[in-house]
């Protein structure tokens, strides 16, 4: 079912946890199914746009570009507030080598595990800080972040592949921490540290999970979830014949955000 070179990511592993069928449809069959997730499509669209712009402004700023004028002229007050939060309450950034919007990929048997990192800093004092900007609707809860696939995958991948960014020096898990910074709730999540023991535990968990997924024999084994609240925020609800009123607790998956509306040309 799963091709050689298939790329597991925090998003796909999270999806598998939420619903195996959704994993099948989205990541194995690449099925596009443009059903709305909410009745408030304008709000949904704006949330995506705002997230994209915010990520882009931070990236532009890191390149030394002047973004203030664009933010002041923006007709989105929330985006301006977020930038204000960033100005006043951005997380500490130690001096060191900084990499923005970097994708790292590590082998896992015949498959790969990838992480799309908003920012990594290899600090002069030896610390390795992974930053992830959050722009979703929900107020983040520390406990949810400590124990999710994103935290596990990001820290694991940076330790396994970080040497690519350090000129060959291996990354010690004990030096790694992951900092989630939410534009709306800048103080909500504390840095999440890492250790060698956690790294080995992460490897085992990933190995087991991938084996479990790869062991599924056929499409039918990618079962529909029992949890109907998942269906209420899933674009495939009509495909799966799980039609019910749309929920209002939708959110965006920042890992999948992309300027994909960029028109295409053949050259």
């Amino acid at each position, binding site marked *: 079912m799963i091709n050689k070179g*298939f790329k597991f990511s925090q998003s796909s592993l999270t999806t598998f946890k939420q619903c195996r069928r959704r994993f099948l449809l989205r990541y194995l069959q690449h*099925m596009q199914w443009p059903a709305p997730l909410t009745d408030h499509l304008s709000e949904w669209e704006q949330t995506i746009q705002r997230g994209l712009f915010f990520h882009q402004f931070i990236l532009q700023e890191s390149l030394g570009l002047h973004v203030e004028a664009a933010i002041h002229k923006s007709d989105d007050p929330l985006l301006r507030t977020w930038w204000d939060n960033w100005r006043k309450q951005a997380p500490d950034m130690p001096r060191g080598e900084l990499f923005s919007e970097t*994708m790292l990929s590590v*082998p896992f048997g015949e498959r790969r595990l990838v992480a799309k990192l908003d920012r990594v800093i290899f600090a002069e004092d030896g610390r390795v800080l992974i930053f992830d900007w959050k722009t979703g609707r929900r107020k983040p809860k520390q406990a949810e972040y400590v124990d999710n696939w994103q935290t596990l995958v990001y820290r694991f991948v940076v330790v396994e*592949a970080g*040497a690519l960014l350090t000129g060959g020096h291996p990354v010690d898990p004990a030096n790694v921490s992951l900092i989630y910074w939410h534009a709306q709730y800048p103080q909500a999540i504390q840095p999440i540290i890492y250790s060698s023991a956690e790294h080995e535990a992460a490897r085992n968990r990933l190995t087991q999970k991938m084996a479990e997924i790869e062991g599924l024999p056929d499409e039918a084994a990618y079962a529909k979830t029992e949890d109907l609240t998942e269906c209420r925020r899933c674009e495939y609800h009509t495909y799966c014949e799980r039609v019910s009123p749309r929920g209002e607790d939708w959110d965006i998956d920042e890992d999948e955000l992309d300027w*994909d509306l960029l028109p*295409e040309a053949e*050259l």
Partner: protein
Amino acid sequence: MNMAPEFNRAINSSLNEKYTYFLAGPLVAGQRQALIVRLRVLLEAGVPGYAILVLLPDRATARRFRQQVDELDLGPYGAVDLQTYYGLASRLIRLFWPLVADSAGFAAPERPPVFLNYETAQYLMGQLSEPLLAQGYFEGLSMRPQRIISQLLDNLNKAAVAGFALGEVAPRLAQAWTGEASRLRLYEHVQICIDLYRGHCLQHGLLDASLVFEVFNRHLVAKDEFWRYFTERFRHLLVDSSEEMVPVAHDLVRRLLHQSDSALLTGDVQAGFRIFLGVDAPGAAELQAECQESIVVEPANCADPHLTAFAGRIGEKLGQGRTVESAGSPRLAVVDLVQTRYRSQMIESVARQIIELINKGVAPGEIAIVAPHADGVLRFLLAETFRAADIPFAVIRRYETLREEPVVRACLTLAILAHPEWGQSLSVFDLAEALERALKPLDPLRAELVARHLYDLRSGQLKNASELNAKMRERIGFAAVERYEILREWLESYRAEEPGAFDHFLRRLFGEILSNCELEPEDAQVYSKLIASASSFRQAAPAMDLKGTDIGKRYVEMVLAGVVAAQYLTDVDLEEAPESIALVAPVYTYLLSGHVARYQFWLDIGSMSWWDPLHQPLTNHYVLARRWNQDERWTDAVDFSIRNQNLYRLVRGLCLRCRGGIYLCASDSEGRGEVQDGPLMMAVQQVLQERA
């Protein structure tokens, strides 16, 4: 496809001595594999992925390339930038917008850019040129406005990819012109329209493809801050099929070439098929000359000798000089010449021969059918025959207009029903076609019954199903009538609501009515593309002076008028159907795919479409090329010679991508009764008669 062993030298060359290689020869020599292996060498040596730029000629190639890279057995690596020139340019313009917007001349540089897709660009050009057309611009040209618009946009793109100023378009066209003086007036009109359009884009922060090329090439790359970032980041350069790239892409490669730690370029300087997009094969030859070392693989060393000989002989007949002697025999390249009276007979014969080949053990994936156009009759007849014989068959073609797609037509029909304020009328036929999809499962006959009995032509509204008599209700089917009522009520309640964005309407229509388990995933994909297209149109709407429900109305009118689709509507790509017989059109789509067939069927070889570009009085691909000598004149002799040269390129490209033999297929007349004796047919006959 095997890779020529000579390429290994380049693949394993130094990683940091600024060594630059060019691998030259036909694609079948394995240059693309060489690039992938080189990429592997770089990554295995610990070069971070973000330091490698891979430039590819088109999106389909980029997709295939990525898939192959994903399948490599490699240790950890950083993701590599696999980009087309346009993709790279648009991404970097978005990122460096604060640096470049002002100097590029945008009136409000602090506003984010709005990228226009091709549909929207056509709409905008149509809007801006409409008053001028009403004043008599382009009078005397018997041509649909749509074709005028696409030629105007073509001029903008040609200037941008060749890297000359927009103001030079009309002077260049005029200087080369040798015909009637009245044409010069048309060129003046062209210049006024394109200047107006460019001015509007700059005023409103709109970037069409031409501005993406121009802003990137002329403004962004010229900024020291940008160039420092770009060259510090991309230390290794890999370029695939450089002959399929435009001059400004070659400029970028040339500049980067001398600053990279290593560079590996590939190309076939005798190819370069997409001349209509401005690609420049001689520019690839210039890059080759700038590289420190070239490794050249001749066709004789990587392709079938008989097919190479056939291509060479056709080239001679087309006046393309004497070709290199080949060990092969042109006659042996041709398995059969299928000539029938009617086109349908030709198609039947093709299907029969293919079934025979398969019965002899040839795999369907080893057979390719190429044609200038894959029209409905051709697609239908082949699909039916192969379905009956249980042979996998895939059509790989580009849609020319959005409205060609039944899914799109159905959506727009329902949109018209939902928006009576637009005042657009529908035919029973349109409605029946839409109902067939919206009320699935419903056969065409019943769909027509519903449309005839339940559509009020005068009000443009659907009637309540209670107006059906019992007999009709039974004929249509109770379940279908129930589904009809759900649709009717949905439309009614939508009309009662405060109107929202048009693409949101499409999304809801999909989610609440059209998407059920009966819907094919391929159709859902087309819906996605339609929604993306409509959303892109809406984002540009304020700059086109459109508001509210007018946006949807104009969008629907534009699509129904036959706007040429952005390039992203294709059925499937070749690599998605490796085990199927592939019908590919137009021919260059096949040539770019990297597919090598055991047997090729060339259809309609008598058709002028193999030779004849569209009549384009308002533009000229050659005169607007960077390479055009401005002292030259566009005469019939030049025109004739260039067409022959292009035809030879196609023939050579196809022959190099075939291992076993070709079937040349023609019919005496098409449906319109025109005799089919185009230049390809004439050349083929001459070559075959030589040996008879």
